[in-house]
């Protein structure tokens, strides 16, 4: 049977007000790479961290986790692999 545990990736979705420059600065400060805005969702950015585990059943913890303490970071979520099937 498919694994029921959550599978965390090394991608994060972040909501940062202030524009792409602010997002770039915060990403660089904590070792992330800002991959750009998520689709058409304003102020939502895709952050990638190359030094965290690519797939893990545990959410990632480390110095990079302190990003959530940044005042301009309104929301952050480590991305989880979802099981999706074609119908």
């Amino acid at each position, binding site marked *: 049977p498919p694994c029921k545990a959550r599978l965390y*990736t090394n991608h994060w979705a972040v909501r940062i007000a202030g524009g792409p420059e602010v997002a770039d600065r915060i990403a660089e400060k904590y070792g992330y790479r800002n*991959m750009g805005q*998520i*689709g058409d969702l304003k102020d939502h950015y895709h952050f990638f961290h190359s030094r965290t585990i690519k797939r893990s059943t545990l959410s990632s913890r480390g110095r990079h986790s302190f990003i959530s303490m940044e005042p301009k970071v309104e929301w952050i979520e480590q991305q989880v*692999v979802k099981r999706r099937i*074609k*119908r």
Partner: protein
Amino acid sequence: DYKPVPPLSQTSPAQNSVAQNNIFYNDAKWSSMWYIHCSDDVHNCQSDMNIMGAWKRGYTGKDVVVTILDDGIERTHPDLSQNYDPQASYDVNSNDLDPMPRYDATNENKHGTRCAGEVAAAANNSHCIVGIAYNARIGGVRMLDGDVTDMVEARSLSLNPQHIDIYSASWGPDDDGKTVDGPATLARQAFENGIRMGRKGRGSVFVWASGNGGRSRDHCSCDGYTNSIYTISISSTAESGRKPWYLEECSSTLTTTYSSGENYDRKIITTDLRHRCTDSHTGTSASAPMAAAIIALALEANPSLTWRDVQHIIVKTSRAGHLSASDWKTNAAGYNVSHLYGFGLMDAEAMVKEAEQWKQVPAQHVCVETADRQISRTIRPEHLVRSVYKATGCSDNANLKVIYLEHVVVRITITHPRRGDLSINLTSPSGTKSQLLANRLFDHSMEGFKNWEFMTTHCWGEKAAGDWILEIYDTPSQLRSQKVPGKLKEWSLVLYGTSVHPYSTQQKDRFIDPLQPEDEFTEEYNGPCDTECNENGCEGPGPHHCINCLHYFLKFKNNTRMCVSECPSGFFRDDRKRCKKCSSMCETCVGSRSDQCMSCRTGYHLIEGSNTCAVSCADGFYLDSDSNICRRCQENCRRCSASNVCTECKPGMSLQGHKCQMTCNPGTYFNGHRRTCELCHRACATCAGTGIEACTKCADGYLLEDWRCVLTCSPGYYLSELTSDNGQVQRFCKKCDNSCFECLGPGELNCSSCNSGYNLEAGTCVVSTVCKDESWAEGGFCVLVKKNNLCQRRVLQQLCCRTCSQKG
């Protein structure tokens, strides 16, 4: 405004269809596209999606953009390259602009290409098929061929929303019958942004394939994508109108298109990977792109339709036709709806006709009514929890007020040891019952539901205010080990709709024939109309003077009509808002047949299950006086009392307690699990179950010893005989007296052998030890020991050796 009809056939007359003005294309599989050629004599199908009718009106999807969110799109396919739109495409998995699928030996990534062909395969290019919107622009987003995260979904759903009109998705959470999952934060945000700002403020249209978990007894209300008010959830029907094996049912389904079904049903043909053509495309994945294409035709007819206008038009024009479902009902707004098919089969021509003259519906209002927050209600096994909430429709707030319903959402939190044992129903103030959740056999989760939103479309058009009834049933499955009760923690009702009638702005121009002399017209009436007349006015003050009715009408034998707010008793409303007569025995009904009664006239009772009325309840039924319904007795019961206590069983059954069980021959017993008579153990003449311990009477040659049947009495037992009143001698083994090891009869004087430490003397077991010195206990104490037959206890025997050794 003239729109040219697509080009006619240039091939030989033999290839033309029978009707003179039918369209013909030279695409290889054109003649096999039975769902398009419905109306001709060759392909004849029972209900038509009227795609040809929409084409003849000039609508082919021109300037409409559709994107397929899937595993990629073969943009080089000869049937797709003409209409391919790179601006409607992206590769989210590889983060580049090219959505070409990844090729492998198994052709795993064929799905998106198959979906795309149904929408916009080019017409008359000799290749494969013709897409339903064959002039639409088609793109694809490669997003399933890799890790699918919330972000991947959101990026896909929010791709170029000012350019893309329709997003079609034929995927979702697992249809294994035990998953509850839906869009997460970002995907939900993408939906909300899309309907608010997409298509330059008119709202993106999201089309979603309903679940394919029919075999797993799945329920599409556990899929948050199809359950969303922002998506148009699409069901499938086979050519025969029967439910396909993969279909799930739920109250969030809006409409249906054709797909494949059983082996004898015709298939859907579409473009396949590697430039091929296939008839293997199946499931609701074949239906959603069809629906997307039909919506594209409607958007071409009227590009200013909003996302809600599209849903309104679908509700108004979809038809039950020959689609087979046991739960078709007419809601209070006059729409036929079922849990399998929503409002029925899509009708492309009717949709484009409505779209042409459509006026936007009023703004959506959202009214949140928090029903039960303070009190936690226990859900006991095999019991029902009913919660009634009197909704006002937020009538005190003009910005939130909902009078005419669209979607209804119930947000609910339940704790329960086995989620699949739950079923939930919601009944609207007008009496329309939606099954929000059915039992799911394979869902053994203990997680319950946490603020899960169940959605129903079945109350569309009804009034919002009034009593809403939520019912939760717990039907414990045999697999459930704990009968721990669940709890309804809280629930709230979210009503979506409008405060103004959605169609009150629809204008219909009155036809005026310029050739008719003026004095042929009656003088125009300018006075007030009856309240039951709609906006088209009237020719007099009475309800029979209305040009069109607001609600329903009665038609009389002299061909006159009268508008009414509700159909009177003894009438039902059909899908054209006409009040028609019920069968003579019905008081209320859903049709004119005698098996379509909902309640009966005085003197008659409704028969449960058959919806017929009868003077008295037949065998096998009892009268429930409270509801005036003849309800079924228990299984195998022939007659039962008014409180459903069985009094007589069917032939071959016998009443045991209050239940009827099969009467089994002597030597056999009724196995309730397998529901058959099975042989008793050979030692039993009759028994209550399997094994030698279940004998109730011993077979010949066997003796009853305690609860067992034995051939000879065990040591410690003696053979006893008892003569019954009818002279029959019963032989059985009885336990010897405690003082004997073995015996020949009852009492302490019939021992035949003794326990160690005792000697047999004249049939009695006496202590055999030689007493040493007289112990301190000899005397009254030891007399008491002997009197109470405690000399057999070794300690006391030694202590009172002398006294115990004495006879007597």
